[in-house]
């Protein structure tokens, strides 16, 4: 469970607030999309959830633990964060080493690490890539591998930051299927509204540092006026063909 | 500037390994004490890779057909500070030696010393000294130029010393040094300019990125540079020791080898006499015996070289001493103000 109460935040030294008075609650097992134009503060929310930025006002609770320095290790073990840029996510030489990185760091035994790694690779369907060098992977493979790297932690909460940005249509479809097959709480930020439409039941719209809308995905994604006034457009699949 | 394995004898190679190893161990200890030490490690890796890649970019030098490249050590330590910069350079040199035949496994210690140690530590001493009164664009250019020239000169001089101490060439010290130093003066100036333009760009875009050397590490840094001097002095003694070792072992080897090649004892005897006369003059005058014992002219060259080498060493230590003195003075005034 994730709970934000009256959360405001501005980056170090900057006077401008990046987020102001965010207030929402995500129950276990929900899939939530966070949408908004470039620079609306989507990524910042994600960074706050995992405690990469700690100087915020208000309170953020993850599974009843407040996000602060002393709880960080426990919280981070429960959250799998898939970065926008796969090249930053994958830093070990081979796929296997990278997927095994987290369980090793959390002190599991050799057998456990092996089991978790194989399981994670299998659930994504990339067992055959395990001995491959990272730089030999294609963009799509890199994305899939980076999901595996957090699945090996067996997190309760999965966070995806702009996941489809480097994917071709086929890999995008594959990604959506994988995403829908995964259990647990999922949070996806994107301006690919079709992706949100296909994967999330609930959507939060952010614009100008504030929360504009929080509710059913279908309702908001069909509301052209609301989307356009906040720098977004209807999902392609819902746009009526002109001509 | 990368030395190949064949340019070094194992004794000199090992000596340089010990020297560089000591500095590396010390740097690791230093880094561990830094507040954001965990964060520094990925930064060291990524920045090392950056330097590696950008060293492959050719920069056209206006008015000439030739090109130059970046001065990695100074660039890294101007962002990361000397200790992290040094470790990062070791990684770069290690990979260069394995994959691109730039340097070699045996020569790694020497290359780390000649490029990373001078580039990062002496480079950042100069950087710190120039930036003492605050950072400006002019000072960045000045520091980059002086830094690159000085560190390259020191590096080139070390290459000369290490090669000669290894006894692989018959070049007299003076000729060798007189070829190496001016070439590297030009290279240093060019690299300094390139590095300066990059650092100026960073200064305009993100000035907080640049290491100013005066932050919270002030107190520690004072101690650390003292220790570096101690290491330096130890090193000169070590290198000196290595050279004398070689000097004592080489003549036997020479006789033996000529006998092996020719089987002619007459030549051997002739060589022997020539060597003895040379040696008697040499041992009295020279700081670096061993590399010129064939003709009387080069014997004179040696004694000159001994004086030159001595003068450079002394001058270098004096400069370092002066910098430390200035630093202490500054530290005192700060304390008084407080």
């Amino acid at each position, binding site marked *: 469970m994730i709970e934000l109460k009256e959360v405001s935040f501005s980056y170090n030294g900057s006077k401008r607030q990046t987020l102001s008075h965010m207030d929402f609650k995500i129950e276990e097992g929900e899939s939530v999309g966070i949408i908004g134009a470039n620079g609306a503060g989507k990524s910042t929310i994600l960074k706050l959830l995992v405690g990469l930025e700690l100087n915020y006002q208000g309170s953020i609770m993850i599974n009843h633990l407040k996000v602060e320095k002393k709880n960080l290790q426990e919280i981070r073990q429960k959250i799998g964060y898939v970065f926008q840029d796969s090249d930053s996510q994958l830093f070990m030489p081979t796929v296997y080493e990278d997927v095994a990185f987290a369980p090793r760091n959390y002190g599991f035994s050799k057998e456990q690490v092996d089991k978790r790694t194989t399981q994670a690779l299998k659930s994504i369907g990339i067992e055959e890539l395990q001995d491959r060098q990272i730089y030999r992977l294609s963009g799509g493979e890199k994305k899939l591998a980076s999901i595996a790297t957090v699945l090996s932690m067996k997190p309760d909460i999965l966070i995806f930051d702009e996941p489809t940005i480097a994917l071709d249509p086929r890999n995008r479809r594959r990604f959506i299927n994988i995403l829908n097959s995964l259990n647990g709480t999922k949070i996806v930020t994107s301006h690919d509204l079709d992706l949100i439409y296909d994967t999330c039941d609930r959507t939060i719209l952010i614009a100008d540092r504030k929360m504009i809308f929080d509710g059913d995905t279908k309702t908001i994604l069909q509301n052209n006026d609301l989307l356009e006034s906040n720098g977004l457009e209807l999902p392609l699949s819902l746009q009526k063909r002109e001509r | 500037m990368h030395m*190949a394995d064949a340019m070094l004898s194992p004794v000199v190679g090992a000596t340089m390994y010990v020297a560089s190893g000591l500095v590396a161990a010390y740097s690791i200890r230093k880094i561990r004490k830094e507040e954001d030490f965990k964060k520094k490690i990925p930064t060291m890796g*990524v920045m090392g890779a950056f330097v590696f890649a950008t060293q492959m970019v050719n920069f056209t030098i206006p008015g000439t057909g030739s090109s130059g490249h970046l001065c990695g050590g100074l660039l890294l330590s101007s962002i990361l500070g000397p200790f992290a910069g040094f470790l990062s350079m070791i990684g770069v040199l290690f990979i260069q030696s394995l994959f691109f035949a730039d340097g070699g496994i045996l020569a790694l210690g020497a290359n780390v010393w000649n490029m990373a140690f001078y580039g990062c530590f002496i480079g950042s001493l100069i950087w710190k000294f120039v930036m003492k009164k605050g950072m400006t664009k002019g000072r960045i250019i000045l520091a980059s130029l002086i830094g690159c020239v000085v560190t390259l000169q020191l590096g080139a001089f070390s290459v000369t010393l290490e090669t000669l101490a290894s006894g*692989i060439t018959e070049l007299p010290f003076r000729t060798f040094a007189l070829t190496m130093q001016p070439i590297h003066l030009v290279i240093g100036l060019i690299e300094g300019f390139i590095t300066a333009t990059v650092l100026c760009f960073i200064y305009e875009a993100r000035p907080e990125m640049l290491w100013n050397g005066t932050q919270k590490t002030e107190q520690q840094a004072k101690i650390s540079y003292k220790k570096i001097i101690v290491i330096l002095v130890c090193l000169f003694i070590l290198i000196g020791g290595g050279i004398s070792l070689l000097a004592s072992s080489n003549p036997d080897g020479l006789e033996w080898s000529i006998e092996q090649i020719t089987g002619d004892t007459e030549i051997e005897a002739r060589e022997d006499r020539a060597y003895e006369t040379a040696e008697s003059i040499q041992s009295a005058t020279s700081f670096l015996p061993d590399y010129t014992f064939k003709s009387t002219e080069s014997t004179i060259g040696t004694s000159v070289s001994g004086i030159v080498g001595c003068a450079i060493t002394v001058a270098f230590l004096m400069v370092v001493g002066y910098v430390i003195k200035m630093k202490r003075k500054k530290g005192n005034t700060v304390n008084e103000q407080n």
Partner: protein
Amino acid sequence: MNKIDNAIKTIHHMDYQANYNTYFKKIHPFVKLLTTIIYIILLTSINKYHLVTTLAMSIYLILISIIGDVSIKNAIKNLKAVLLLLGILGIANPILETNVITYIGIIPVTIGMISMFTLLLKGIFAILASYFLILTTSIEEICFALKMTHMPNILITVVMLIYRYMIVFLKEVQRIWVAYQMRAPKQKGVQYKAWGSLIGSLMLRSIDRAQTVYESMELRGFHPDTFFIPKEKVDKKSWTYCFFILILLIILRFIPIFEIIGNICI
């Protein structure tokens, strides 16, 4: 810029070789590293006039290239720069050491010539030895081997990261260079006006990337001391290999087999 293309190609080639080399994959990386270092030490310690012993050391390289099925062709490209360097150094020897020791036909052979050839050969052999090492051992394996020598974790981590991101940046530089060249044809290198901004902006991006890499490591429980680098014990087979190679090297280095063979033949 050819240099960058070549670098990327070299890395790909070596990686491919190291991963598909069937025979040497079974030998523990630590042993491979150890034998290579010993070879280079023995090689460089040869007296500078001892051409014959230096030549004898080539036997090890020939053996490795045969057993490991690695070609020397690609290595030759890497040799150019080093040969030039050693050539400049070595050329002084024939000029300064003019004592004639023998004649081949009517051509006099001086000790300077001998020491020059010895130097060049040593240079070539040392490079080939490390080239064979990297052709038969991947960088991860070398890192594991370094871990066994108690090299500090921090340094190994840095080496691994440099290797990982080296290619990312090489490709980035390549793209920047292509973009630059399309708008500035007929230039061999980057013009001085663009020096700072071109590399500087790449540098800022690198710094930002370093930040995200750190965050991604941090979120997965990174700590430099517990950073995992696997260690595998050296098995019997590898020790046997090590033993035989050492014996071979000692024979080549200290017993004048070439002379013995020569004497027998004459």
